[in-house]
């Protein structure tokens, strides 16, 4: 499994390798699967079987690096006719299909993640490069700086550049679960948000901006290891 079966040009590969935190071998291996549609079909059946049992697929892909798997998973989401390399790079996949990936299915922030990384004008679909961006930010080697930057944008539910009380309360509801019995009570929520603002809002304007957020994150050494998605 080397570069012989790869249809992604070497320049494109090198470019992805240089601009993201993903490694070269990871991108190379994926295209091998794209070349053989019948293999893709059978693997897709096996994969959908795995998805039903809910087992993470990472176990059988230890030898299969990240961008490769990224490209393969992405291509599974596309209809058959768009699976060639050139078209797969341009195709836009709607959110519903991205959200069906097992790595994102159980994540309460999945819609926000897709929306933040989408560069389409209508912001309702992801291209392969957006997908690569997503994986790069959530990869192991990404700097804590870029992770905290995107974490801020994910948590900013109304996209106004700061985390206000509404954002924070939606964030806490995502963390604790959306059911009626799993939410915090109104008084607890208010107390919690007051405490959070007290601790992190340094300029006392009632909202948390990016700098304040990054300052809070810098105090937690475990953030970088928990802000990771493993394909």
């Amino acid at each position: 499994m080397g570069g012989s079966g790869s249809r992604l040009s070497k320049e494109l590969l090198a470019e992805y390798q240089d601009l993201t935190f993903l490694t070269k071998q990871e991108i190379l291996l994926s295209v091998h699967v794209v070349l053989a549609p019948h293999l893709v079909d059978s693997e897709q059946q096996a994969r959908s079987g795995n998805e039903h049992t809910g087992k993470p697929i990472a176990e059988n892909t230890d030898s299969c690096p990240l961008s490769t798997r990224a490209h393969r998973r992405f291509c599974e989401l596309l209809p058959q006719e768009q699976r060639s390399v050139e078209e797969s790079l341009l195709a836009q996949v709607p959110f519903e299909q991205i959200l069906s990936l097992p790595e994102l299915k159980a994540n309460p922030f999945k819609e926000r993640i897709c929306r933040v990384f989408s560069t389409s004008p209508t912001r309702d679909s992801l291209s392969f490069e957006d997908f690569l961006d997503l994986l790069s930010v959530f990869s192991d080697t990404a700097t804590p700086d870029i992770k905290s930057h995107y974490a801020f944008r994910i948590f900013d539910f109304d996209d106004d550049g700061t985390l206000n009380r509404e954002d924070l309360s939606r964030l806490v509801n995502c963390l604790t679960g959306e059911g009626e019995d799993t939410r915090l009570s109104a008084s607890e929520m208010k107390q919690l948000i007051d405490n959070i603002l007290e601790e992190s809002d340094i300029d006392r304007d009632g909202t948390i901006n990016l700098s304040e957020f990054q300052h809070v994150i810098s105090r937690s050494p475990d953030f970088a290891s928990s802000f990771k998605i493993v394909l």
Partner: protein
Amino acid sequence: MAQPLAFVLDVPETPGDQGSQDPSPYDESEVHDSFHQLIQEQSQWVAQEGLELQQREQEAPGSGQQTLPRPEGTQSTATLRILASMPSRTIGRSRGAIISQYYSRTVQLRRRSSRPLLGNFVLSARPSLRLYDLELDPTAREEEEKQSLLVKELQSLAVAQRDHMLRGMPLSLAEKRSLREKSRTPTGRWRGQRGSGGVCSCCGRLRYACVLTLLAFNAVLLLLLVAFIMGPQVAFPPTLPGPAPVCTGLELLTGAGCFTHTVMFYGHYSNATLNQPCGSPLDGSQCTPRAGGLPYNMPLAYLYTVGAGFFITCITLVYSMAHSFGESYRVGSTSGIHAITVFCSWDYKVTQKRASRLQQDNIRTRLKELLAEWQLRQSPRSVCGRLRQAAALGLAWLLCLGTALGCAVAVHVFSEFLIQSPEAAGQEAALLVLPLVVGLLNLGAPYLCRVLAALEPHDSPVLEVYVAICRNLILKLAILGTLCYHWLGRRVAVLQGQCWEDFVGQELYRFLVMDFVLMLLDTLFGELVWSRIISEKKLKRRRKPEFDIARNVLELIYGQTLTWLGVLFSPLLPAVQIIKLLLVFYVKKTSLLANCQAPRRPWLASHMSTVFLTLLCFPAFLGAAVFLCYAVWQVKPSSTCGPFRTLDSMYEAGRVWVRYLEAAGPRVSWLPWVHRYLVENTFFVFLVSALLLAVIYLNIQVVRGQRRVICLLKEQISNEGEDKIFLINKLHSIYERKEREERSRVGTTEETAAPPALLTEERDD
């Protein structure tokens, strides 16, 4: 007519004025939907509500704090536009701001300056905003210009640095590609060389890290011992005292029997210089070396190899402890626990719905606990309540310390009984009794302490874990201390004339093996059975995983302490420990997977690894080092076996060699000099200790100063925030006044039906 303004700010005259000086993200279509809608509706003169900045609750200590007015009518478009373009809002969002920020960073990288030049920046109040070089600059740059500046700076960087900078920019792939294209230098194609990818992320668990650390330490020790002691001894085997005993299966447990006269134990090693046909057992100075052979002084090698192994372990341990501490400790990290829990506690690696729900439960419980703790801290408890709590705490501690003392006394009594009873000494299986008893005490007493801990009131579960670790550690230290006294004090006296070092080495081997067997049994029966019994009670489930982490960490430390204690008497013990660690790791991993334990809490992991290394270094390694030093300096080696059999102490071998070197001649005279004035002289040790203390004190002062600076900076930012709110309030009031005048003017001109030209003239004065 223009109002006299208290500050210099060029505000647009009418709300619908398109000639705003500050280019706002609105122009870049980066403004969020609510602003867009508001501005649209404003321009149609529809009353809107929902001011962007919210009013903070007026707390009691917030006297003098300004708040923003509640929206009571129309807000001018220009105000909203200015608010939308505030740098603190746009830093994360607008492309131009990001490009400016990274331009400044690249400039600093190139010029190696930590501050931007003051002369270049005009109006900005906040030093941090100067770095962003945003629209506060009167010569507001277009995005194209900013991009070209960034590209120029990128071109002047080295390839690897440019790649690193591009990779770390929070822009989309297409934008990064265009920047890269533009900044590519025309002199030939460059290929960025990337290092290998990151460490495998699938194995980030704490146990794996701990086991790996211990494996590394043991492997280094084993390598040294094999290379310098065991290898030569195997190459030149000494004559055995009698026929080798038959190997029964019991050796694996007791270490006695056919293992006794092998390289595994101290007694097998010769005390002569190898590779020399020497009859005298003293040092080889009197023998003539064989031509072509290299004389190898076994006692010296034994002593110095063990010493070097400990020294290397010490340095490595202290270095990794310091490194881990630096990674996990942040100045002021104990505060802000609510914010950190909410922002950092979700583990994105979770992929199953059930695990995700479990994590949500954990986080909800944690948040409720935090809020309860906070409530408790807010309401000061009465003196009576505090006394009661102190009494309960004191009682629990007393009981646990009493348990530890009781266990130590029990071990002492039992070991004395074993010494006294002659018939037990004859059987080989009877040797296993003491390790078994100690192992059972080590298993059972922590459960007792856990029950006591459930009775006492604790405010925070983090403290509970650390207290449990402390108590368990005290128990183990008490037992180990008693055992060390038993070996070096009593057994040496009893076994005069026999090989007591062999016995001690075998004892430690037995302890290691028995510890492993009991751990296996405990894992199989304890965790499986326990989890079945309490699987219905959700309350207990929450507490169990935390205790397990503490207990597992302490078990690893205990095993490693036994290894370090026994290295002097049984050089093959690190190999046994390595095998044991690997087996234990796989057994525990299977047990974890089978029982589907709750996922670990990420916020505890890095602290735990620091705690693990600290505990490994201070009580464990230090204790083993003290034991080793005492054994080498003070205890008389047995006269019938081992490499030091004719000397008064093991350290003598070194002194004998130094005397031999002194006699050898002036060529190597620096070595005895070093030995006399640095190693044996206490002044040098005092000097080094004093230097170390000075360095530690300086570091403490630096941290204290940093904390003070952080406090001052926070105050300054909070004052700036008040300035901001004041200015925004002023803006509102000015615009409100203008719009009121505008409305009244529109009303009067409608009556008089004046031409629009007059209107503009009137407005302009």
